């Protein structure tokens, strides 16, 4: 397939830095859309603010570029109004879990059929390399010159506890796995989350001496392991990848439709 069929070519090359993992996520997402046979008209992409949010400009879907952290709230309004559309909401780590943390946990709880993608580069890229709630202790950042003391969220634990019915994590090194998870998330009925470790060579990489983009990808390869794998069992310090949650539960949109059907049988009130 040619991923270029799904992009607004006049806006490319994109503005992401050389080696930025966000482009790889976009690449996998377009392959997933193609694999699912979705039409460009069936997809609404809503983004917030940050490097991640640029994605809305590049894809040839219905696109909305909104406010920092609020993309899921806008998407909720769209999905409640037009349940037949596929809502895809790519977010950065700060976008999703700092300023947007409340919207994220409530979207998870409600289980409205939306796909959230957390492109986790462990840093605020657009504003110049400040730490995020996913950076973790020891990360060097422009607002943590001596290393961050802030504990990090585990996005998978959070999504699971808040009620998301599909939650998976992978990295931009594991591109086939990434496409599979995105396909799983989009076809899942209910709120789905895919967390993708995405390299930021410009800020995270330079501040933390990780080397260039290929070196960062190697780290993703070497520092993660599949859930249930022998490697993970033997090396519990590795970061687990895989599908953490995949369960059936009543989707909010369907629950609301049923509420409406039952209410319509009552006598009118006013």
């Amino acid at each position: 397939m040619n991923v270029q069929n799904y992009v607004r070519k006049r806006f490319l090359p994109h503005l992401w830095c050389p080696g930025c993992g966000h482009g790889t996520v976009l690449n996998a997402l377009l392959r997933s859309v193609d694999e699912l046979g979705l039409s460009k008209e069936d997809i609404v992409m809503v983004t917030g603010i940050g490097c991640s949010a640029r994605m809305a400009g590049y894809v040839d879907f219905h696109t909305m570029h909104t406010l920092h952290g609020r993309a899921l709230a806008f998407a909720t309004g769209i999905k409640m109004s037009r349940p037949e559309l596929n809502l895809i909401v790519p977010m950065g780590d700060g976008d999703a879990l700092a300023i947007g943390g409340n919207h994220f946990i409530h979207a998870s709880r409600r289980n409205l059929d939306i796909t959230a993608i957390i492109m986790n580069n462990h840093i605020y890229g657009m504003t110049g390399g400040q730490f995020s709630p996913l950076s973790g202790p020891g990360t060097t950042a422009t607002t943590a010159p001596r290393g961050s003391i802030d504990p990090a969220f585990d996005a998978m634990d959070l999504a699971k506890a808040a009620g998301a019915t599909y939650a998976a994590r992978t990295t931009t090194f594991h591109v086939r796995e990434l496409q599979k998870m995105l396909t799983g998330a989009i076809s899942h009925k209910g709120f789905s989350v895919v967390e993708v470790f995405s390299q930021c060579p410009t800020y995270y990489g330079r501040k933390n001496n990780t080397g260039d983009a290929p070196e960062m990808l190697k780290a993703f390869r070497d520092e993660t392991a599949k859930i249930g794998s022998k490697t993970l069992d033997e090396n519990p310090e590795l970061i687990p990848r895989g599908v953490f949650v995949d369960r059936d539960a009543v989707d909010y949109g369907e629950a609301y439709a049923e509420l409406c059907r039952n209410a319509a049988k009552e006598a009118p009130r006013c």
Partner: protein
Amino acid sequence: MQIIIKTDWCKSCGICAAFCPTGALSVEPGEKARATDVEACTGCGLCERLCPDLAIEIIKVEVSI
């Protein structure tokens, strides 16, 4: 195999060359990615999936001898 590289999209990050299992691609510092050994390409597609710039397309060409 045919390796199409959209050089005006490529940002020379080097990821394709670093992970190509057969060394079919190379990226010199400051240069765009190039298919330096097309014969070696097995069409695995890893480079086109890894490319953050959507700049690579692999086309499998049936070659009749």
